[in-house]
């Protein structure tokens, strides 16, 4: 802890009766859901798509739950606390993918696919090569996203509950596997719904408590924040947008990355039809938008209210210093604020919600990773579509356990690394490897098997390659002097490269069969005729 914040007392990291209580309550409730949901899994449609019986509103909450990770809850509130307005700019980028998802892919995806986005890409193309390439893109995205979640969650749990990092990783892995193995997609969906409601309620209460300290007046809060930090104007843009090209590239990755995240796309198969898919996006956008509108208030509140005042109103420690004292990145701003406003019981509640958030997101990622192997590789490539329900379900469960073990192992292997770039990488790969192939397969008649394969491979290789050569990895991680690739996020380059590769290769390798099927698949794409 830096010397600037010795005056601050917190029970964070010292488990209290309340925090342990809420922690076990969350685990108990979610396991009861799992037991209830898992009694009837017989088919792969139940395992991966909850029997397509989730309603639009339920799916909206589940989508929001999948998207509002601990990183966005703790990370954005912390970023606003430390950097002010920059955190708000960042938050807008996280929302704008949702309308784009709706306009471009949600309904065709629901109509054409079965369990994975590769179903849609491969629909009229040759199964083998496309499935393998799409599974590579899907698994890469999911793995990087999972490592980021696991490492982040391990340190958060260690910080909040005072638990050793390795134990935290194993615990997340074990409980998450229970949800997925015994409760399948139905349990995972309900865990997401419960978690989304808890998270929204927790943040709403926190926001209300902050505003109550300022007479429910936002200007009063802003004024307090600017008065407290006279040298750092929290209400104007700072470093984040110093380079417009970087800002646009990050915006592209955030916006179109969403359209290529396998664990999000997979949720559209849990609803009965395209109309439900559409309405669920409206719910999700509303919930996530509300979350990002109020979360900056929590951040500003932390910057002001966590300050330690001495006798006569002199400031002994600024809120930002207190927050940095617990975690350099600011991740503990929201939990600390909860404790300062309503005591350690509320801290326990917020910590338990953050834990539930981590569990639920990792469970969703595990299902997505497992389906990429068992549905796209095992069933479609190895078995050529001929496997019994029992075989499919068994492979799905084995793949789930394997993915869970890999997630825990990678989480432990990356302990202590700064993994913030991994989320950016996951979004960049999703936007470059998965999204262009998905979009072209839906809208472009001349798209071919090899066009899809090359688009996915070029997108994956160029996004991974340029992130490695960029400042985030080349300089910060490998300690070279200068970055070779100039941008922090490569999407503007790698996404264009993927589209270009798909177009050029498709034009060079005409596939009359695929073009003919494009016409007949239109009934399914636009009318839902024959959709599963």
């Amino acid at each position: 802890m830096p010397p600037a914040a010795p005056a601050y007392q917190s029970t964070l990291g010292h488990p209290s009766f309340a925090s342990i209580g809420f922690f076990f309550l969350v685990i108990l409730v979610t396991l009861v859901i799992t037991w209830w949901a898992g009694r009837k899994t017989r088919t792969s449609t139940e395992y991966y798509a909850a029997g397509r019986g989730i309603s639009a509103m339920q799916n909206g909450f589940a989508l929001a739950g999948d998207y509002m990770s601990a990183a966005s809850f703790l990370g954005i509130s912390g970023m606003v606390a430390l950097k002010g307005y920059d955190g708000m700019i960042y938050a807008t980028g996280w929302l704008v993918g949702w309308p784009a998802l709706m306009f471009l892919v949600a309904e065709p995806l629901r109509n054409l696919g079965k369990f994975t986005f590769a179903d849609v890409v491969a629909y009229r193309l040759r199964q083998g090569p496309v499935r393998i390439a799409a599974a590579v893109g899907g698994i890469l995205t999911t793995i990087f996203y999972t490592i980021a979640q696991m490492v982040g969650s391990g340190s958060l749990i260690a910080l909040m509950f005072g638990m050793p990092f390795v134990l935290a990783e194993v615990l997340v892995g074990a409980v998450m596997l229970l949800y997925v193995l015994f409760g399948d997609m139905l349990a995972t969906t309900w865990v997401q719904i419960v978690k989304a409601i808890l998270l929204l309620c927790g943040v709403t209460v926190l926001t209300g408590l902050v505003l109550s300290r300022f007479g429910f007046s936002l200007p009063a809060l802003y004024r307090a924040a600017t008065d407290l930090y006279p040298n750092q104007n929290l209400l104007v843009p700072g470093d984040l947008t110093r380079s417009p090209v970087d800002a646009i590239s990050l915006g592209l990755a955030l916006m179109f990355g969403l359209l290529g995240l396998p664990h999000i796309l997979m949720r559209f198969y849990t609803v009965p039809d395209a109309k439900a898919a559409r309405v669920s996006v409206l719910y999700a956008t509303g919930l996530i938008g509300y979350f990002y509108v109020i979360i900056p208030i929590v951040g500003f509140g932390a910057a002001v209210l966590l300050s330690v005042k001495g006798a006569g109103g002199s400031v002994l420690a600024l809120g930002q210093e207190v927050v940095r004292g617990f975690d350099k990145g600011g991740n503990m701003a929201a939990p600390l604020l909860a404790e300062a406003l309503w005591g350690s019981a509320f801290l326990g509640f917020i910590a338990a919600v953050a834990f539930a958030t981590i569990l639920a997101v990792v469970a969703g990622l595990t299902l997505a990773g497992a389906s990429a192997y068992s549905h796209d590789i095992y069933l479609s490539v190895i078995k050529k579509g001929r496997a019994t329900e029992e075989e499919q379900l068994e492979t799905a469960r084995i793949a789930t356990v394997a993915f869970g073990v890999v997630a825990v192992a990678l989480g432990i292997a990356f302990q202590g690394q700064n993994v913030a770039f991994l989320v950016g990488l996951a979004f960049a790969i999703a936007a470059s490897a998965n999204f262009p192939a998905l979009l072209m397969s839906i809208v472009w008649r001349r798209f071919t098997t090899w066009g899809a394969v090359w688009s996915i491979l070029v997108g994956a290789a160029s996004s991974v390659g340029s992130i490695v050569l960029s400042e985030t990895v080349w300089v910060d991680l490998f300690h070279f002097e200068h970055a070779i690739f100039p941008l922090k996020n490569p999407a503007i380059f790698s996404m264009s490269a993927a589209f270009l590769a798909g177009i050029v290769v498709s034009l060079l390798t005409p596939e009359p069969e695929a073009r003919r099927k494009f016409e007949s698949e239109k009934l399914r794409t636009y009318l839902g005729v024959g959709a599963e």
Partner: protein
Amino acid sequence: MSATTRPADASKNATELIESPAFRALVKIRWSVSLTLLALLFVGYYGFIMLVATSPAIVARRLSEAPGAIANLGLVLGIGTLVFAWILTAVYVVWANRVHDPEVERLKRQLRR
């Protein structure tokens, strides 16, 4: 998965429907609406980002010179971008439910006949 295993007359019916002006119009309008809304989203979001990146002074301008007022243009635009994104989504859903779906149902009935 395969859409080609239907009886011959059904498949002839399907081909006729795909080539009918009504179906073509449905597809065309669907993409016109989607792409128009997407263009608005682009203008709104990237306009906001570019404004913040290139003219921080405009963004920092106070909305009112009154002594109590502190909100600046940037705060309003930030929240406004979030609200705008949701409104575009809502516009699409209202259009799709009221205009698009009835036409989809009508065309599906033609197919069954």
